[in-house]
């Protein structure tokens, strides 16, 4: 055989042919070795074989086998080797110790056959037989791989989840179930896992995705557990599709974002686990700065001391409530600025335990508004007080000079200083009427002003209406008799008792009766109190009927307006303020009643105060 042919045989041997010197460095590396392990000849030759392709846990085995080869000449075994990309392959190895003429070792020659797929089939058979029933009964999708990362078992939940048939998956690298972008990184992680196999969650804190046969991706959560068998360690992955939970999480986040208030979710340790954009804007910290921080960084220094205790208190009795009811609360911004807040707390049960959700509202604007409102109120109260004082002073100041005018007019008319002639008497009476008019004007004006300011004190008590009418009649009878009018009073028997304000009632009847006497030159004024039933309710009617000139149709609509006194032919006869009917109507409304009238020119007038009895 020519050396050339020998070299070709060496090169084209379907199995990896590797020669290793006594010091463990690689001397020869054929094409198949390049293909199986991924290292080129240049990368491999001169390197220590142990470091290049032997997993750590096989070091011991490797040296034992070399010793056996030295002893026996040739040894055959199965083992695992690591490829350049970090994955492991199953190999069937024959190793021969080649000796020099002096009997010393020249090199080891190894023939390594990649039997990964055969091993997978074997493993598949093994785990299928042993674990099938168990794994079918778990709710999670289960995918089991052997040390080479090839799938050796899938349960039907996994078939459903990934949309693959079992037969399509068996023997495939597990990366077939991952989106492309994760595959390379996964190969390296997979190798690492076998070096330190323990039960754990995969990719803690990372977002993991599964890939369906149809190309769809879905978020997953994966737990890994090693499973020791006589065929080596297998890894069982339990895979959970968390699309729904992700959606729920997203919805919750959306909900937080859509809340009008700043929302901060805090865990039992008082650390922020979720904040919305409003919170970021309100406090001036970025989301990243806030998450994981103690909630107390948002509380002004002087309130921080007690806050953790309050927090613990809340967790021991979690219920929705507002924070620090009745207290002034403040928030602290990143820039050190403080602002008044209102905070509602509610417990939030989650899979990760109990959280507190706090809604924080900046009430700066509202506080400012409230303060303005308070200031305005004080201002208004002061104004009202000033107005009251003004009324009282005005009343006082107007009455004092009137006292002298009415008083001395009276003494003169009483002829105390001496007799008067007819003209003096007449003129003094005009002065007296004018002065009394002025007095009633002052009284009515003050009442109206107080009514407008809701300052008239109404005292509701049970009063005898007959007695009120009698008193009014007694005080006005002299005026009627002076004018030679027939003045009659008719009252029901027994007397009517009513819950109302005596002064207001009396004032209305005085006004109506006084008007009737004033405007009637001859005939009668009849004062009546009657009971009616209107719509099933008892109504009291205080009516005053006169035989005066009556009120023209066109004047009637303005009758109750202030100073709308109807021009009579003889103006000299007019007395009163022109406020009487206006005031009476307002008073009647305060008593829950009204004043009605009917009148016609030449037929006299009847005014009626109607009050509900019940």
């Amino acid at each position, binding site marked *: 055989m020519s050396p050339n042919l020998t070299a070709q045989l060496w090169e084209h041997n379907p199995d990896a042919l590797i020669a290793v010197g006594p010091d463990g460095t690689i001397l020869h590396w054929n094409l198949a070795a390049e293909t199986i392990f991924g290292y080129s000849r240049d990368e491999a030759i001169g390197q220590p074989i142990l470091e290049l392709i032997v997993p750590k846990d096989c070091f011991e085995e490797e040296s034992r086998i070399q010793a056996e080869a030295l002893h026996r000449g040739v040894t055959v075994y199965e083992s695992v080797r690591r490829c350049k990309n970090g994955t492991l392959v199953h190999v069937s190895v024959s190793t021969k110790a080649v000796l020099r003429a002096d009997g010393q070792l020249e090199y080891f020659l190894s023939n390594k056959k990649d039997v990964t797929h055969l091993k997978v089939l074997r493993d598949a058979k093994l785990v299928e037989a042993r674990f099938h029933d168990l794994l079918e009964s778990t709710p999670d999708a289960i995918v089991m791989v052997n040390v080479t990362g090839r799938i050796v078992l899938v349960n039907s939940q996994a078939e459903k989840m990934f949309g693959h048939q079992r037969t399509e998956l068996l023997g495939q690298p597990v990366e077939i179930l991952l989106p492309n972008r994760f595959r390379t990184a996964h190969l390296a992680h997979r190798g690492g896992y076998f070096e330190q196999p323990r039960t754990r969650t995969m990719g803690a804190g990372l977002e993991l995705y599964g890939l369906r046969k149809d190309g769809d991706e879905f978020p997953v959560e994966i737990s890994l557990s090693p499973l020791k068998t006589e065929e080596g360690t297998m890894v069982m992955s339990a895979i959970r599709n968390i699309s729904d939970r992700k959606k729920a999480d997203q919805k919750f986040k959306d909900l937080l974002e859509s809340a009008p208030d700043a929302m901060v979710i805090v865990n039992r340790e008082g650390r922020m686990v979720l904040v919305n954009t409003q919170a970021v804007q309100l406090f001036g910290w970025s989301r990243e700065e806030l998450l994981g921080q103690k909630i107390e960084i948002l509380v002004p220094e002087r309130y921080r001391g007690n806050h953790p205790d309050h927090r613990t208190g809340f967790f021991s009795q979690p219920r929705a409530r507002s924070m620090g009811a009745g207290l002034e609360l403040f928030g602290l911004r990143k820039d050190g600025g403080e602002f008044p807040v209102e905070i509602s707390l509610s417990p939030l049960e989650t899979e990760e335990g109990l959280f507190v959700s706090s809604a924080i509202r900046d009430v700066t604007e509202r506080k400012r508004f409230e303060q303005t409102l308070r200031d305005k109120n004080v201002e208004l109260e002061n104004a009202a007080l000033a107005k009251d004082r003004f009324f009282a002073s005005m009343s006082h100041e107007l*009455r004092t000079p009137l*006292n*002298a005018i009415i008083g001395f007019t009276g003494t003169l008319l009483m002829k105390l200083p001496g007799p008067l002639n007819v003209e003096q008497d007449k003129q003094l009476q005009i002065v007296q009427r004018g002065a009394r008019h002025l007095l009633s004007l002052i009284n009515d004006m003050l009442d109206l002003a107080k009514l407008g300011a809701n300052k008239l004190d109404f005292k509701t008590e049970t009063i005898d209406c007959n007695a009120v009418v009698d008193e009014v009649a007694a005080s006005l009878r002299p005026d009627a008799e002076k004018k030679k009018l027939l003045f009659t009073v008719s009252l029901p028997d027994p007397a009517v008792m009513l819950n109302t304000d005596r002064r207001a009632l009396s004032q209305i009847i005085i006004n109506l009766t006084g008007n009737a006497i004033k405007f009637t030159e001859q005939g009668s004024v009849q004062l009546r109190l009657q009971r009616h039933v209107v719509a099933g309710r008892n109504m009291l009617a205080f009516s005053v009927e006169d035989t005066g000139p009556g009120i023209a149709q066109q004047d009637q609509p303005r009758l109750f307006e202030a100073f709308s006194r109807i021009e009579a032919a003889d103006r000299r006869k007019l007395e009163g303020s022109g406020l009487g009917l206006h005031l009476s109507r307002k008073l009647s409304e305060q008593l829950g009643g009204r004043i009605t009238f009917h009148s016609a020119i030449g037929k006299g007038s009847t005014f009626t105060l109607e009050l509900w009895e019940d």
Partner: protein
Amino acid sequence: MPTRILIIEDDSASRALVRYLLEAAGYTTLEAEDGGAGLHLALQTQPDLIICDLQMPVMNGYEVARALREQPNWHRVPLIAVTAFSMAGDRETALAAGFDEHITKPITPETFVTQIEAFLSRALQVRHSPGH
């Protein structure tokens, strides 16, 4: 001894009116132009009845009433407020301060003396009653 009535009033026209009405009815009057002088005169002269304005300089009517009511043996002297205070509650305030009656200005000259005499006769009856 004639019945003496003290008029404490700062408005001279009002004072003149009351004086005129009382003297026309046959009473002797004493006058003071402010509360302080009025109180002094009252204690000095022991009048049978006092007519007193409320709003006055130096000492107002309420203070005069309270001071007098604190004196021994002064509780039976009728004390009548004649005042232009006519707002709601003014009457109650006056009575609470120790006045027996509250007459609003303008007074009614035709009935004023009669109103006063009602209190005077009551006081005189007490004074002349046996055992006093």
